[in-house]
């Protein structure tokens, strides 16, 4: 077993190295959670200050696209997990296939979100500023909502793009992984699912709360 070549000299074994990598990504996700945390907190706080106007903004969003996108992301995470399971059972081919599905679903999200939905939002004049199209008493609160909306979806989209790049890298490197050694597949999978979780918090904030009241 060429174990020595498979890990750097600070690790005692390849297994030691794998455990360390997994600890690292979990800690990184904790960081990411605190990165997004202030948006969620400020979002809820801002709505609390002026719920009527804020919700009036929320009702301008495209629910159908939001629901479709949520379904796409959940399906994508599912596909990734299936791919990972294939790898654990030793089927590299199965993994590549399912990861391609996951990648395509993620790309579809990006296309729908920024190619279609954002374009519609901008066409409707929903970007905050002088040309904002909601008038009347709800104007300010609705602008505040859309400031959050564009900021957070852009940031989430950016994370998704990084995820797509990592996924592509995993697919191209697939030859290197075996049923025993595939910690990068796990690490990227955790990140990929995390982006999904962030979206699952954004989804109700964007599309549901304004409509519920």
């Amino acid at each position, binding site marked *: 077993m060429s174990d020595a070549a498979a890990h750097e000299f600070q690790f005692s074994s390849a297994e030691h190295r794998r455990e360390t990598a997994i600890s690292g990504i979990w800690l990184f996700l904790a960081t990411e959670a605190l990165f997004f945390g202030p948006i969620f907190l400020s979002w809820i706080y801002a709505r609390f*200050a*002026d*719920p*009527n*106007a804020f919700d009036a903004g929320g009702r301008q969003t495209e629910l159908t696209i939001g629901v479709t996108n949520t379904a796409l992301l959940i399906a994508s995470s599912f596909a990734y997990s299936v791919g990972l399971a294939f790898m654990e059972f030793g089927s590299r081919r199965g993994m590549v296939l399912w990861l391609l599905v996951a990648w395509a679903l993620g790309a579809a999200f990006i296309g729908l979100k920024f190619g279609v939905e954002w374009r519609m939002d901008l066409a409707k004049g929903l970007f905050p500023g002088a040309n904002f199209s909601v008038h*009347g*008493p*709800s*104007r*300010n*609160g609705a602008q505040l909502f859309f400031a959050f909306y564009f900021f957070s979806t852009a940031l989430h989209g950016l994370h998704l793009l990084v995820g797509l790049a990592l996924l592509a890298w995993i697919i191209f490197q697939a030859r290197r992984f075996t049923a025993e050694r595939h910690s990068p597949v796990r690490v990227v999978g955790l990140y990929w699912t995390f982006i999904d979780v962030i979206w699952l918090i954004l989804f109700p904030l964007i599309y549901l709360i304004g409509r519920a009241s």
Partner: protein
Amino acid sequence: MNGYWPSATLEGREVDLLLLALLLVSCAVLALVFGLILLYMVRYRAGSGVHRGARSDQAWRFEIGWTAATLAVFFGLFIWGGDLYVRLFQPPADALQIYVVGKQWMWKVEHQGGQREINALHVPINRPIQLVMTSEDVIHDFSVPAFRIKHDVLPGRYETLWFQIDRTGAFELFCTQLCGVGHYTMTGEVVAMSQPDFEKWLASGAASEGHEDMAAAGKELFTAHGCSGCHGEGGVGGSPETTGVQAPALAGLYGHSVKLQTGATVTADDKFIRDCILTPDKTPVAGYPQIMPSFSGQISEEKVLRLIAYIKSLKSGSRT
């Protein structure tokens, strides 16, 4: 600088007492820490032949001891500082209200009689004064070191600060929140005068030139901005028969509680009336349709204050 010490307010002198206590505690701790360090530096220096004896193996006793002592002292200081702060936070009910608007880089003051001044604040002594403060642009801070008080002045909301001066004099006023290039020029003075002098000042030429009573100025705005079109002349309220729309009465509103559509009950104070004018959507009053337009961006902070002064002046049933 004259009159900095003792402080010109009772609360200021109490703050000084608290500071003195803090100073004494600090000096005692510093004496202990420096004393022990110096003592050990001499006594236990490497070359010293002093007998070290057995070391205590019951470190935890010391640990519990000094932790408990620290906690007790800290808790006492916390209670003292907190108690005084609560009093600084709550103005007496009969305080004289004066309005302050901060902007880059000046303080604009308006008295209820409409007397206006810039970078100066004239007040009577032996009477609680409450400042209602807001900003036109960035965050400022109204600070009078001689009274040991300060408070931030924020755009978009009213903050208050109160004090009662017990001797006459002029005291420095600083802006203590960085507000841009001219921050250091945003200074002025608080002039404390006896009640008769203050009244003379209010009536004097310099202060009263071209001024109009705040409420009277507010009344003009009330008509000019169309408030009376719905709320009726003199703010008596509107109904489909009189003004064409259902609008709440404003006379006698100030200081009373108002029920909102959200179910909450709030007291109609300055902040509430300001919100009603600028962001009516936030404060939908129960029993009325939410049709009031927002005046945000259309009325300056000073005009809002005059409107509020007018609404405050309206007594129930009065038709001025």
